[in-house]
C-alpha cells in the first residue's frame, strides 16, 4: 500500500475526528452552562439531580458511557439499532460527558465573580438576564479559558474513544490499516495527525486568551 493512499484513508478518518470534536463542543458548551445553572439553583431537587449527574459523568469512563448510549436503546427498550445511529450515539455520549466537565468549570468561574459586580448592575437597573449575559458571563469566559483549554485538548485525544462503537474516526482507521498491512506506519501517521490537530487547537485557545488580555 502506498503512502499516499494511506494518508488519504487516514485523512477521511481525521475528518470524522474533527466532526466529533466540533459537534461535541457545539453541544456541550451550552449544555454545560445549563447544567451549571441547575447545580447552583436554589431548588434542592434540581441541585441534587445535577450534582448526581455530574458525579456519574465524571466518575465513570467515557468509553463505557458511549457503549451505554449506543446499546442502551436496544437493551432497555428493544429498539433495533440502525448503523447510522453510531455517529449520533458518539456525539450524544461525548456531549453529555463533556457538558458535565464544562458545568463544573462554569460554576467555579461564576462563583468566583465578586458580588460587587452584581450589586453595581442591580443599582443601575439591569435585569437579571442582562446582568448575567452582559456583565457576568463575558468576565467568566475570560476566567475559565485556561481550564476550558485543558478540557478541549483532552477532547482531541478522547475522540479516539469512538472506536469502541466502530465509528471510523482516525484511530479506528489507523488500527484497521495497521492490522491488514502488519505495519506500524499508520499509527505513527495518526500520532502526527493528533499532534498537529492539538497544536492547532492550543494555538487557537492561546489566541483567544490574548484577545481577552485587553482588561484585567
Amino acid at each position, binding site marked *: 500500500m502506498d503512502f499516499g493512499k494511506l494518508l488519504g484513508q487516514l485523512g477521511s478518518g481525521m475528518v470524522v475526528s474533527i466532526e466529533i470534536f466540533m459537534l461535541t463542543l457545539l453541544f456541550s458548551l451550552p449544555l454545560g452552562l445549563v447544567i451549571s445553572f441547575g447545580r447552583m439553583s436554589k431548588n434542592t431537587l434540581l441541585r441534587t439531580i445535577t450534582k448526581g449527574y455530574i458525579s456519574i459523568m465524571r466518575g465513570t469512563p467515557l468509553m463505557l458511557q458511549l457503549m451505554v448510549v449506543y446499546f442502551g436503546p436496544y437493551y432497555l427498550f428493544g429498539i433495533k439499532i440502525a448503523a447510522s445511529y453510531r455517529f449520533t450515539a458518539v456525539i450524544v455520549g461525548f456531549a453529555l460527558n463533556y457538558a458535565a466537565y464544562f458545568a463544573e468549570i462554569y460554576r467555579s468561574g461564576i462563583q468566583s465573580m465578586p458580588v*460587587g459586580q452584581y*450589586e*453595581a448592575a442591580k*443599582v443601575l*437597573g*439591569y435585569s437579571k438576564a*442582562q446582568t448575567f449575559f*452582559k456583565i457576568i458571563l463575558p*468576565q467568566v469566559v475570560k476566567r475559565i479559558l485556561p481550564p476550558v483549554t485543558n478540557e478541549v485538548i483532552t477532547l482531541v485525544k478522547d475522540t479516539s474513544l469512538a472506536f469502541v462503537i466502530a465509528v471510523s474516526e482516525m484511530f479506528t482507521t489507523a488500527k484497521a490499516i495497521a492490522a491488514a498491512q502488519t505495519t506500524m506506519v499508520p499509527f505513527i501517521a495518526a500520532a502526527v495527525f493528533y499532534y498537529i490537530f492539538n497544536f492547532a487547537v492550543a494555538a487557537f485557545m492561546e489566541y483567544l486568551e490574548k484577545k481577552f488580555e485587553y*482588561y484585567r
Partner: protein
Amino acid sequence: MNLLEINHMKKGFDGLEVLEDISLTVKEGEVVSIIGPSGSGKSTLLRCATMLERMDDGELIYLEEKAAWSDGAGHSVYAPKNDLKRIQRHFGLVFQNFNLFPHYSVWKNITDAPLHVDKISKAEVEERTNKLLQQLGLEDKKDAYPCQLSGGQQQRVSIARALALQPKILFFDEPTSALDPELTGEVLKVIKELAQEKMTMIIVTHEMQFARELSDRIIFMEQGRIQKEGSPEDIFGSDNARIREFIGKF
C-alpha cells in the same frame, strides 16, 4: 418635597441587630453626611435604602412613592417588582470600591445602562456622557479600561456612571476610603461641585472636614441608631462625649 423618607427601619443579621430604629428624611437639594464608628451600621443603612439588602421592618419612601411599608406585625412588605424598578430609578449609588465593569471601556461603563436599561436615544446619551466626562475631567479617558486608571479616576468614572441615569438622589458609601490619600482630593472636589449644583446626596464618610464644609446636615450613628442629627455646627460643637471622642480621632 421629601425625596427620601425612611421610617422605623430595622435590620438584623442572624440575630444580630444592626439597625435598631432608623428614621430619616431627606429633602430635595440637601446634602446629608453620615458619620460614626466602624460597625455602627452606616453601610447597612445605605444598602437597605438602595434595596441591595431587604430590611426586616420599616418603611421606605422615594418621592412619596412607597417602596416598602410595615405590615404592622414587625415585617416589611415591598412593592411589586415593576413598581420597585421604577422607584429604583430615583437613586444612584457610588461604592467604596467603585465596582466598575472591568471589561467595558470608560465610555461603555457610562453609556450602557442609559442605552439598554433606560432605553434613551443614542444621541441624547452621547450628549449626556460627553458633558459628564468634561465635568469630571475624564475627556481623555473615554477609551481607557478601568484597569488603566488610577483609583481616583475610577471613582470619578463610577460617579459619572451613576449620574448618567440622572438620579434624584445619589448615595455614596465611603467614596474615598479605598483611595491613596493624595487621590482623595480629586474625588471630594467632584462631590463638592455636585453639592453646589444642588444634587441631593447622602454620603457615608470618614472625611470629617469634608463633611463639615459640605453638609446641610450630619447624622452621627452608633450601635445601629441615629444618636444625633443636626447642622455641622451642632455636631462639631456638640458636648456629647461620644461624638467629641469620635470626631477627636480625626
